[in-house]
Structure formats: structure tokens, C-alpha cells
């Protein structure tokens, strides 16, 4: 696989959300607006890149038996860093994302890439894989957030496009998350087949 293919795969062919159906909890939980989706996506991207980087360097030294626990510790350290940095610099966003920031630890995308890719590949491909998977994840979250924000409150990235009273409130609430993601995946399946 060339670097270019490696980079592009995370956006469409192996997109974490649309194709692999990983990391569903934050996908549904924080996408009530495009900004929240983007923030969560970028936080996850950072954790993915850093954990892929470290794991690709140290994985040959880790015995097989304690592989998964050690990966979890590495991931959890970066999640803690993101958590503290966000609490310090973007407290409003940190408040909005709430419990989902510490929960990046159990996001299957991160552990999945660590186990399936970073532990078996060299440094550079692992970093590219982290960037690609992370940005693909961020893209999916931002798309879903933008759709929900648009239909729910008539806004896009916080900019009002039409009066809020015409919005369908259900899209901002919990059921809208499931329904919007369901139709989005159905649409992407349709495009993929065509």
C-alpha cells in the first residue's frame, strides 16, 4: 500500500463510522451540532495519531500477554492529556462534550487501529494511518453534526440559516441522532453501490 492509498482509505473505503461502524457512542452522543462533532473528531484524531505513533515504536518490546492492557494505558494517557488541555483552553466545548472525552479510551476506533495496524507496521505508515482514520472519523462526525444542526435548529456551524421555529426539534434530541445516522449510512451504501 502506498502512502497515498494509506492516507485516503480512512475517508471513504475504510471510514470508521460509515463502513466499519466503530466508535458509535461519540458519533451519536456529541453530534447535536457541527462544531461539537468537529471538536470530538479532532480530539480523537490527536489521540489516534499519538497512540499509533507510540505503539508502533514500542509494540515489539511488549509481550503478547499484556499487549491489550498496555495499549489501553498508552491510549488512556493521551486521553487524559486531551481532557486536561481542552478543559484549560476550550472550557465551553469541554463542558458540551462532557463524559465523552474520557470515553475516547473505550472508543473501538483507537484500540482497533492500535491492534490491527500500529502494532504491525513501522512508524511512518502508522502515523499516516492515524491521521487518515482520525480525519475520516472527524469528517463523519462533522457531517452528521451539520445535518442534525441544520434540520434541528436551522443553523450551520452556529450561523443561522433559517428561523429556528421551522426546525424539527427531534433532530437535536436523542432519537434524531439514530435516525439521521441511519439515513446517512443508507445514503452512503447507495452511493457506494452505484
Amino acid at each position: 500500500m502506498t502512502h497515498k492509498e494509506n492516507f485516503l482509505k480512512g475517508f471513504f473505503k475504510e471510514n470508521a463510522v460509515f463502513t466499519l461502524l466503530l466508535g458509535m457512542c461519540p458519533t451519536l452522543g456529541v453530534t447535536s451540532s457541527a462544531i461539537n462533532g468537529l471538536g470530538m473528531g479532532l480530539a480523537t484524531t490527536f489521540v489516534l495519531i499519538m497512540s499509533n505513533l507510540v505503539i508502533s515504536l514500542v509494540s515489539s518490546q511488549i509481550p503478547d500477554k499484556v499487549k491489550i492492557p498496555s495499549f489501553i494505558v498508552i491510549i488512556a494517557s493521551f486521553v487524559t492529556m486531551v481532557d486536561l488541555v481542552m478543559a484549560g483552553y476550550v472550557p465551553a466545548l469541554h463542558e458540551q462534550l462532557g463524559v465523552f472525552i474520557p470515553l475516547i479510551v473505550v472508543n473501538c476506533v483507537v484500540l482497533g487501529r492500535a491492534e490491527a495496524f500500529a502494532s504491525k507496521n513501522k512508524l511512518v505508515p502508522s502515523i499516516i494511518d492515524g491521521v487518515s482514520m482520525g480525519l475520516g472519523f472527524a469528517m463523519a462526525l462533522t457531517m452528521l453534526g451539520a445535518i442534525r444542526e441544520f434540520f434541528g435548529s436551522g443553523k450551520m456551524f452556529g450561523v443561522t440559516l433559517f428561523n429556528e421555529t421551522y426546525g424539527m426539534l427531534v433532530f437535536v434530541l436523542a432519537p434524531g441522532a439514530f435516525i439521521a445516522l441511519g439515513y446517512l449510512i443508507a445514503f452512503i451504501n447507495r452511493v457506494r453501490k452505484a
Partner: protein
Amino acid sequence: MEFIVIIISAIFVNNVVLMQFLGICPFLGVSKKVSTAVGMTGAVTFVMILATIVTYLIQHYILNPYGIGFMQTISFILVIASLVQLVEIILKKVSPALYQALGVFLPLITTNCAILGVAIMTIQKDYNLLEAVVFSGASAIGFGLALVLFAGLREHLDLVELPKGIKGTPAALIVAGLLAMAFMGFSGIV
């Protein structure tokens, strides 16, 4: 009275899966049959209550006194991962029958964000130990209720003819959305 409010709120009003989006992976993954859904619920209930008790004690007797609250995420996930292993080993020795029923679901639980999520929420809501136990138990029941209801719906969904693109996961997600809408009817009762 307080406990009743916590229980009703955790099961219906703020259902872990349908309102808070925790534990979506098992919710979509093991909900194809009612029987597996029941097995998963058993395993989750067991581990969730146990994990909440242990993480509660760690937070209040180790992390808080030494002022190392920033270690919360790392210590909690490690505790949950080892707890799951421990439960698996003990169950295998003590009750092979129960192990047969729950065994396959146990390894999946480490990455179930409902467990870590409920443990962290218990700390955020400042519950005492008894309230924490009641809250985690009720959350687990809420998880089970959503999972079993959804599994029942999906068993029927298999028999329906749908357009190709929407079959499978998209249909399941839309049905989950309708279920979440039904649960919204409970909002306001506490």
C-alpha cells in the same frame, strides 16, 4: 423516595443507551436475538455494579486524598479491564453454569463504554456509596430493557422487505431512533 427517583430516572428518563448513547456497540452488536440480549444484560449488570463499587472506593480513598484526580481515566479503565478478567476466572471456577451463560459476553464488556461512563457519572453526580450501587444497578436494568426491546424488534425486522441500501444497520438505527422517541415519552415524570 430518593432511591425511587434515581431508579426511575436511570431506567426510563435518562436511559443509558437511548438517551445518553452509552454502550451503543453491544446495543447494535448483540441485539439480533432476544436470548443473547438477555445473556449480555446479565453480564453487564454484574460487572457494572461491581465496577462502580470498586471505582467509587478508588476515587474516594486513593485519588481524592492524594490529589491525583487526573489519574481517573487511566485508573478506572485499568480497574475495569482487570475486573472483567477476574470475574471471568472466578466465574469459571465457582459457577460453570453461569460461566457458560455469560462467558462469551465478558471479554466484550471491557470496551463497553456504558461501564466506564456510569462509573464516571457516579463520581460527577457526587453520589454516596449506596446511591452509587442503586444508580449503577438501575442503569444496567435500563441498558437491559433497551437491549431486549430492541432485540425483539430486530427479530421481526429480519422478516420485512426493505430497499437494499437501508437493510441491516441503517434499518436497525432508524428503529432504534423510533424506540428512543418512545422513551422520550417518559421525560418529565421525575
